[in-house]
């Protein structure tokens, strides 16, 4: 095999796999970013519930994080995809937010499933970060008459993020990889699935799985650079 065949493999259009990989790369980013954003929201809710005075809320949150962390991720994603998404649909219909017969499109159902799993880990990261913010600084904000929202946005959140960034960064890295799990739910044409198709069609397993690996690596390397920049930014003022 000579070099120019590989270049042809990665060509754009019908003959090559370049465009497929490009869109697979984008799809992986799209799934990861959506799932991550949703996981942050789940995580905040679960953390708030865990730290609340209400026993029922605490119980719900602890059950959620415990169950999710106990089961294999892929199993959890399957369960959520086929059951919880359906329940959520019914709930949304009942609450009147959407019309009868509403169904998540499979993309969002898959994103929801991934986020549901990541959210449980996120909750742990955020809880530890929240507890690392000294109570005294919250009291001094309360004492000058700041509202709860101001205290959260201006005192708790910025300092919490400093403690959360390493953990949140790790979760981002793992969600970019876990996004490949959705391949079991159907054809979403993300990176792994694209690699699999290209390898199967050409029998060039090593080459195409290699390309897939390099692209995942690329996401990770860029992510690490961004995370480090954020850490430096948030650590200003700390010895």
């Amino acid at each position, binding site marked *: 095999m000579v070099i120019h065949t590989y270049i042809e493999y990665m060509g754009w259009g019908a003959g090559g796999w370049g465009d497929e990989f490009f869109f697979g790369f984008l799809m992986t980013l799209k799934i990861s970013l959506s799932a991550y954003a949703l996981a942050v929201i789940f995580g905040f809710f679960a953390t708030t519930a865990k730290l609340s005075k209400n026993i029922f809320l605490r119980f719900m949150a602890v059950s959620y994080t415990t169950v999710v962390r106990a089961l294999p991720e892929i199993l959890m994603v399957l369960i959520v995809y086929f059951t919880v998404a359906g329940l959520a649909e019914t709930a949304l219909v009942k609450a009147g937010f959407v019309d009868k017969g509403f169904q998540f499109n499979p993309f969002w159902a898959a994103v929801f499933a991934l986020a549901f799993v990541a959210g449980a880990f996120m909750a742990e990261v955020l809880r530890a970060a929240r507890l690392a913010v000294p109570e005294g*600084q919250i009291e001094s904000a309360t*004492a*000058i*008459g700041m*509202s709860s929202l101001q205290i959260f946005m201006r005192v708790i959140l910025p300092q919490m993020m400093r403690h959360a960034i390493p953990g949140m960064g790790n979760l981002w890295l793992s969600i970019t990889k876990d996004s490949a799990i959705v391949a079991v739910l159907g054809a979403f044409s993300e990176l792994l699935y694209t690699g699999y198709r290209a390898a199967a069609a050409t029998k060039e397993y090593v080459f195409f799985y290699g390309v897939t690996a390099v692209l995942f690596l690329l996401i990770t390397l860029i992510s690490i650079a961004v995370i480090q920049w954020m850490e430096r930014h948030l650590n200003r003022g*700390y010895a």
Partner: protein
Amino acid sequence: MTATALSVRNIRKSFGEDEVLKGISFDAHSGDVISIIGSSGSGKSTLLRCINFLERADSGEVAVAGEIIKTHKAKDGQLSPSDKHQLKQMRARLGMVFQNFNLWAHRTVLENIIEGPVQVLKHPKKKAVADAEILMDKVGISQKRNHYPSQLSGGQQQRVAIARALAMQPTVMLFDEPTSALDPELVNEVVQVIRQLATEKRTMIMVTHEMALAREISTHLIFLHNGRIEEQGPPQLIMENPKSDRLRQFIGKF
């Protein structure tokens, strides 16, 4: 007769079975400096914290400049503020200085000082900075305006905390042992600032173990024991002639 800046009526507070405050009342008139002394665990901090509702009392009443903080009895039996908006306004008028400074670690000296004026009093940032400059000068921290709290000594941090409280132009300043977390050689720089405030006739309530300072600047001294005001009066008088054995013992320790 000057106006009543702070009026505290019948504050009671229990932690579980332990009744820490058994009905405390006192008034601070404008310009009064009231020092609260008492042994460890006598409820001094709890009293200060009940005044600005960092801690919820079981019963009692607090009024700032004649305005009563509206409360109702909550289900858990504690006194709950009824009007969040009013509570925030009242807190803004009670400048609290904590034993451990409690500066916001992610904000510089200047940012710490202008936070309240900008966010709570809604002053324009320009005005807040101009006001902060005067205060930083006053507490001698101007050179450190762009430093973060972790880059300051304890004494410097406490002076920033005092400036931060003053920036709210409070009716009353509440100090909870402002010097007891400091290394001995740093106590004096903070004492200087407090002394200065007293000569300016600021209304202050100060929990302290600095007997010399209390005697020097207070207009009134309150000795707290077992959740009650055991003795009170002009500082010279009651320090030289303590009536109760408790106070005699307490003073004897210094």
